[in-house]
Structure formats: structure tokens, C-alpha cells
């Protein structure tokens, strides 16, 4: 693809002549829940990993010292890419769901279409921080139940109830290894975001 300079700026959602416009979806969930598999099943590139080294200042950890301590955390983020036309590229960013990584989510979700929260019903609680975060920040999301044993042990309704998410939150049975399943999950999210945007 040749890079051409832009000769005019159209609306922010129109690609300029310098290349395609990016959109993104965040893929969140607990440890080993299938985030990388999900991204890899549909990405046109092998999922890549970027390292975000971030410094967090935490105060008063040690009561006697009252000294602010700085800690450096490295977060590995997987991502993949789907070209949706000459002028549109969808990026999928996979991010650990633990709440100690929240400090980077604000940026990750800025301008995002929404999020896919992957869950393993045997360890449901691992997705609570992600669900809380997306609800509080009004980020459209869908829940994907990754069926590791090949059969659903819980119904989507059970999961919706256990998570206490709103009744219109899509909860889907998925197989993160299957491209079609992943595509349908993304479609469901975009549709959900559309409904939310029209509401």
C-alpha cells in the first residue's frame, strides 16, 4: 500500500488519503480464558504482542513511612488486525482483566466500538472487574462464554443473572478457536453498539 499525503481533512470518521482509518474492539477476560485464541482465529496477521511498561504511584502502602512508592508494571497486550475495506481497519486488543491493570484501560477504550468479555464459567468471578469497568464507563460489551469442554455447562441466562448485567447485554456461547464464531461475536457487539448509539 502506498502512503500518500492527505490533501484535505474530511470528517474525523472518514479516512484521509494517507491510509485507512482504524477502529478498535477490546477483548478482555481473566487468565487463559482464550483472548489470544479469539484474536488469532480472525486476525489477518499472526497476533502480535506489544509491551506496555507503566508506572503506577501507590501511596501509603507502608503505614509507618507514608512514602509514595513507584512500581513499574509490564503488561503484554496481544492484538490482531482485520482489514474491512480500502479505508477501514479493525484492530482487536486483548488485555488482561485483572483490576491492577485498570490504569491502562481508560486509554484503550477511548474511541473503541466496545468490548468482548470472555469468560470461563468455572472461573466466572475473574471477569467481574472487566464487567464493572465497562458498565461504569458505558462501554458497549458482549459476554462470550468460551466452552472449553465442548458443551455449555450453564445457559446464557444463568450467566447473565450471575453477572447481574442488564437483560439486553448479549451473552453468547462461543468457541474462540472458530473464525465464524469469533466473527459472529464481533457482529453481535457491533449490532449492540449500534442499538446503544441509536437509543
Amino acid at each position: 500500500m502506498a502512503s500518500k499525503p492527505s490533501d484535505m481533512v474530511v470528517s474525523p470518521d472518514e479516512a484521509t488519503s494517507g491510509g485507512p482509518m482504524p477502529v478498535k474492539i477490546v477483548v478482555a477476560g481473566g487468565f487463559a480464558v482464550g483472548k489470544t485464541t479469539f484474536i488469532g482465529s480472525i486476525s489477518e496477521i499472526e497476533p502480535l504482542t506489544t509491551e506496555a511498561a507503566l508506572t503506577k504511584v501507590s501511596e501509603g502502602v507502608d503505614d509507618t513511612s507514608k512514602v509514595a512508592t513507584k512500581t513499574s508494571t509490564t503488561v503484554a497486550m496481544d492484538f490482531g488486525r482485520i482489514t474491512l475495506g480500502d479505508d477501514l481497519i479493525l484492530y482487536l486488543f486483548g488485555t488482561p482483566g485483572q483490576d491492577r491493570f485498570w490504569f491502562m484501560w481508560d486509554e484503550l477504550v477511548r474511541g473503541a466500538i466496545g468490548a468482548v468479555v470472555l469468560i470461563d464459567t468455572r472461573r466466572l468471578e475473574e471477569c467481574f472487574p472487566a464487567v464493572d469497568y465497562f458498565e461504569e464507563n458505558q462501554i458497549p460489551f458482549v459476554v462470550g462464554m468460551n466452552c472449553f469442554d465442548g458443551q455449555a455447562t450453564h445457559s446464557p441466562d444463568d450467566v447473565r443473572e450471575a453477572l447481574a448485567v442488564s437483560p439486553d447485554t448479549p451473552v453468547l456461547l462461543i468457541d474462540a478457536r472458530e473464525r465464524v464464531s469469533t466473527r459472529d461475536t464481533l457482529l453481535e457487539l457491533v449490532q449492540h453498539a449500534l442499538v446503544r448509539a441509536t437509543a
Partner: protein
Amino acid sequence: MSLGDAGDGLRVRPYAITGGRTRAATEVPIEAIVYRTPKGEKAVSSMSLERRQILSILASPQSAAEISARLRLPLGVARVVLGDLVDEGFVALNTRSASGRPDLRLLERVLDGLQAL
């Protein structure tokens, strides 16, 4: 910044590239698609190593995340170097994340694109 923590020694050198800065004047979102300007195309061979590497792989426009991953630069470092390159006119960005959630038209294009996969 405690980027030089003992347990995390690898963090020291990358930020040397940026003169220790962890931010550039221009913010580069992680998904922003970076492309070379004509000035950037001409300047490739005269650049320092990291900048030359970045400008070289920008023969195809790609996201800040991809540049970081392919050149094995921590994301924060890549974004500072890219922000500088934007300020100096060697590269430009396609990004929309500052304009909030995608609008209906854009969502519909994404939907159509996914359905056509």
C-alpha cells in the same frame, strides 16, 4: 519514573532512545495508523537507527501498536518517538479515538465489513 527497577532492567535502555521522556507533545493512540509524509520518505536514510527503522517499515502504513511489536520497542517508547516524528512532519496519523465512540455510519461500515468476511 522508576523504569530502571532491578526486577525490570530491560526498561532502562529503551527510554534512553527518548532521552528519558515518557511523553511526546503529540499523543499517539495505540491504534493510530501512521504513514510517512513526502518529507519522511526523503529523510529515511539520514535518520538515527530507531527513526530509520520506523520510517522503513512505514513503507506500508500501520498502527502504532504494530510498529511497537514489529520493532520490539515497548509501546510507550514507540509512542514518544512517533509523537516526535509527527511534530517534525516526517509522519502523519490517521486516528479518530479522540472523537469519541464511532458514529452510526462508521458502525454500519464495520458491520458490513464483518458480514462480508
